[in-house]
C-alpha cells in the first residue's frame, strides 16, 4: 500500500471500524437494529410519501396504529401495501387509548393482526397535555407482560416510574422529551440522563423531537434510540427531514461515543501558544 498504515495509531485504526452504524447496533427484546431512529407512520399526506420518508430515514422499526377497517371502502390501499411488514419491524401502538383496558384490548388485536409480541404501550391523559397516565400505564403493562407481550413503554420523564416499569419487565423505557407533537425538544435533559444511567434496558426518547438538532441532543445524552413522527411527517419536505433526522441521530450517537469536551467558562486557545514569531 502506498499509504503507510503504520502512521495510524492503534486507537485510530480501531475507530475506523466503528464509524458505520452497522458496527454499532442496539438490541431490544433479543432483536438487533442498526438504525437508532424509529419513525412513526402517522400524519403523512399520503401513503407514497409515508413510504418515501421512511426509506429516507433509514429506520428499521416503524410504529403503527390499530383502527377499525373502513367498511365502506374495503379495497382502499392499506399501510402494509406501502410499508412492508416483511421489511420493517412493525411496532403496534396504543395511541388514542386513555384506559388500561383499551390499551390491552388494542394490542391483543394487533397481535392477532400481525403476529407480533413487541409493542409500544402508551396510555395517555386528556388534552392539552396528552401526558402519560402512569397509573394506567403500569396497570396495562402488568396485564400485557402477563399475557406474553414484550412491552416498550412510553412514560413520563420520572426516574422512579421508569425504574418500576423496567423492574416489571418492560423491554424498553421511552420517556417523552416534550409533549407529543410539540416539537419542543428534550425539556428535561437531567431526568432523561438519570433514567439512562439507572436503566439496564434500552432508553428511547419518544415524543417532542422538533428538528434534527433535538434528535442529536437526545442521542448525545446517551439514549439508545429516538422515536420521531410529527417532526418528519409535518415538515414542509418530509423526505428531506427524514434524511436530516437520520444524520442527526447518527451524529448524536457518534458524539456520545466519542466523549465530548467539558464545558468551560473561559476561552482555551486552539493553536499552540509557543513558537510565535517575535
Amino acid at each position: 500500500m502506498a499509504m503507510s498504515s503504520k502512521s495510524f495509531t492503534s486507537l485510530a485504526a480501531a475507530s475506523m471500524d466503528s464509524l458505520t452504524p452497522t458496527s454499532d447496533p442496539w438490541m431490544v427484546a433479543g432483536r438487533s437494529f442498526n438504525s437508532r431512529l424509529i419513525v412513526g407512520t402517522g400524519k403523512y399526506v399520503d401513503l407514497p410519501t409515508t413510504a418515501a420518508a421512511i426509506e429516507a430515514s433509514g429506520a428499521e422499526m416503524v410504529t403503527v396504529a390499530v383502527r377499525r377497517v373502513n367498511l365502506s371502502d374495503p379495497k382502499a390501499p392499506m399501510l402494509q401495501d406501502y410499508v412492508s411488514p416483511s421489511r420493517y419491524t412493525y411496532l403496534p401502538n396504543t395511541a388514542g387509548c386513555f384506559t388500561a383496558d383499551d390499551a390491552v384490548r388494542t394490542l391483543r388485536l394487533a397481535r392477532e393482526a400481525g403476529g407480533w409480541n413487541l409493542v409500544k404501550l402508551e396510555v395517555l391523559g386528556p388534552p392539552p397535555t396528552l401526558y402519560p397516565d402512569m397509573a394506567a400505564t403500569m396497570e396495562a403493562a402488568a396485564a400485557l407482560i402477563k399475557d406474553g407481550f414484550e412491552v416498550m413503554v412510553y412514560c413520563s420523564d420520572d426516574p422512579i416510574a421508569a425504574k418500576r416499569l423496567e423492574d416489571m419487565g418492560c423491554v424498553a423505557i421511552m420517556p417523552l422529551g416534550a409533549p407529543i407533537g410539540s416539537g419542543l425538544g428534550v425539556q428535561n435533559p437531567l431526568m432523561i440522563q438519570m433514567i439512562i444511567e439507572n436503566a439496564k434496558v434500552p432508553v428511547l426518547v419518544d415524543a417532542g423531537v422538533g428538528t434534527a438538532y433535538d434528535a442529536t441532543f437526545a442521542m448525545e445524552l446517551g439514549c439508545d434510540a429516538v422515536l420521531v413522527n410529527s417532526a418528519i411527517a409535518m415538515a414542509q419536505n418530509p423526505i428531506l427531514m427524514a434524511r436530516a433526522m437520520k444524520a442527526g441521530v447518527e451524529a448524536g450517537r457518534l458524539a456520545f461515543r466519542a466523549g465530548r469536551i467539558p464545558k468551560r467558562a473561559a476561552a482555551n486557545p486552539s493553536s499552540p501558544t509557543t513558537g510565535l514569531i517575535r
Partner: protein
Amino acid sequence: MDVLSKTITLTVNGEALGLPGPQTVAGLVAHLGLDVRKVAVERNREIVPRSTYAATALADGDVLEIVHFIGGG
C-alpha cells in the same frame, strides 16, 4: 328459501349489518371484501384467531370489531 336462511343482525365496527344466516366469521369477512391476512377480528370482546374464522358461527346480536394497521406514531 331454506328455513335456516333467517337474517341475523350484527353490529360491525359500530354499524348494524343484516346477513342471511347461518353465518361464520369467515363468511362475514368475505362478504365485506376484506383481505383476511390484513385484519383482526374481535367478537363480543373476544379475539377470534384467524385459524378459527370458518369454524366460528355468528349469532344474532353479535358485536364485532374488525381492525387493521394504519399510520400512527
